[in-house]
């Protein structure tokens, strides 16, 4: 049985490859939305942050709440701003 760390490493390396394969095809025009869209995805830390905010211990929960706030700024802001940009690209189709 592999240790969870090693399984995680497998997943990590494979996902980096998938990302590389997918992204080399993105046209220059879409680089800015791609960047901000990808940036929104990095807000996935929200999952960890939610776990922390639910901890019974006070200091850990307070820090967790701050993490939830920061991650939500990243997530909500990132997706909305990407959508605003893409809307402009689509208007003429």
């Amino acid at each position: 049985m592999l240790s969870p760390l090693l399984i995680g490493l497998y997943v990590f390396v494979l996902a980096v490859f998938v990302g590389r394969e997918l992204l080399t095809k993105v046209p220059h025009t879409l680089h800015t939305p791609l960047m901000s869209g990808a940036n929104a995805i990095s807000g996935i830390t929200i999952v960890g942050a939610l776990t922390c905010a639910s901890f019974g211990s006070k200091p850990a929960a307070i820090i967790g709440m701050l993490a939830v706030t920061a991650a939500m700024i990243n997530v909500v802001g990132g997706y909305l701003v990407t959508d605003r940009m893409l809307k402009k690209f689509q208007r003429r189709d």
Partner: protein
Amino acid sequence: MQTLIHVTYMVASVLFIVGIKRLSAVKTARSANAISAFAMLLAIVAAMLDIAHQGEIAWLWVGMGLVAGSAIGAYLALTVRMEGMPELVGFFNGMGGLASSLVAVSMSIFAWIAWGELLSAQTAGMTTTVGVAGLPEAAAETRGAAPLLTPDNAITIALSILVGGVTLTGSLVAWAKLKGVMSGGQIFLPGHKAINLVLLVITLGAGIAAFFVVPLGSITLLYQLLAVAVVASFILGVTFAIPVGGADMPVVISLLNSFSGIAAAMTGFVLYNNLLIISGSLVGAAGMILTIIMCRGMNRPLTNVLFAKFSLTGGDKEEYINVKSGDPVDAAIALANASNVIFVPGYGLAAGQAQHATRELADMLEERGVNVRYAIHEVAGRMPGHMNVLLAEANVPYDQLYKREDIEADFKNSDVAVVIGANDVVNPAALDDENCPLYGMPILPAHEAQQAFVIKRSLAAGFAGMKNTLFESDKTLMVFGSAKDVISSISEELKQQ
């Protein structure tokens, strides 16, 4: 329940991958973003189910964080102007890094407190289960005399603090430099690289030590070590970003974007959550690819962008001689008689919000039967693809936009090149002056057109402190002023022609 939660995480992972894939075409891009946002929603719901399932939850804390974060994010996203996009993306990026860093800190404090409670419960002879919501099975197995977190966790938590902290303050410096809050110049400290290395060692050292040297009962020491790690990572982010000049900031933002993904993946390692690892590494790859593309566009290796001092040697400090300046009337006359015109937009177009005025001028020229095209350099603007976003905002048709490599050969066949607030990307010195810091960077050869108009606020040097030999060319006429005003007056004059 656990199965359902994990299946949901898996579905979310797949949707993130689909989302990124569909982002590669204009047609599918908007739905791609919606898919990705939906995946995020799924992940959040699953995470809430997960914690609700594990026991008591401070819903008030969770709710406050969710509402406050969403409100701030939405406000910023909906009010930003397209010109300010690079700064905002940098800022959001920093928030992602901050979240990763905080999660790591919170995780280690919680695990440590839970460990203490567990030990005292055991010594009291009670069998009790301490709420370890979210803590992985593997770590839970080591409960007993050992800490709840394994040495693996110690390393991933330290890395999370490191990457998260660097992403936060590095992004804030990038934000400040782009916003103009901070000067765009390069700042070097004595022994800069050594300082960075020391900070790196302190961050990782303190982060890892927090797990191995803190005896039970001295939580203050734990707090101190974590604080040292966090502060050192914050300083490292600053020292990492300050030597990079304003013009190179897009590279840093792109690289930090990659870091924020890696930070999320590290959090995934702390929580043993594959969703975080997958989506984090996708973002890591995205940021890295964009970074490489931008470096190629400037023909400089990444290490050069990050660490090199622009050497101000050679003739670059010379005064301009023989610069001819004209007014909008001259430009209007030239344009009225042209049949092939190429616009070269640069950061000045963004800063002066001249994209709409430019399109109006272009439309007018088209009505007169002029062939109008835009030449987009890969590093024009303040982030990759920045010019495309601005021109899209002004409804410039796609088929008028040309990448550098597709149009560079056509300059010599065109009558007029109109350079709007671009500098380094049209500097012919990059082609033939080996002392020029830009030497080797592919440029848009505006100097090859029959005539070039350069719309610029002043003759102030570009970021590199370089003289632009295009400005001295016989064929060039400088039109000074803000891009928007100048272009509007050209349009006005053109109507009279």
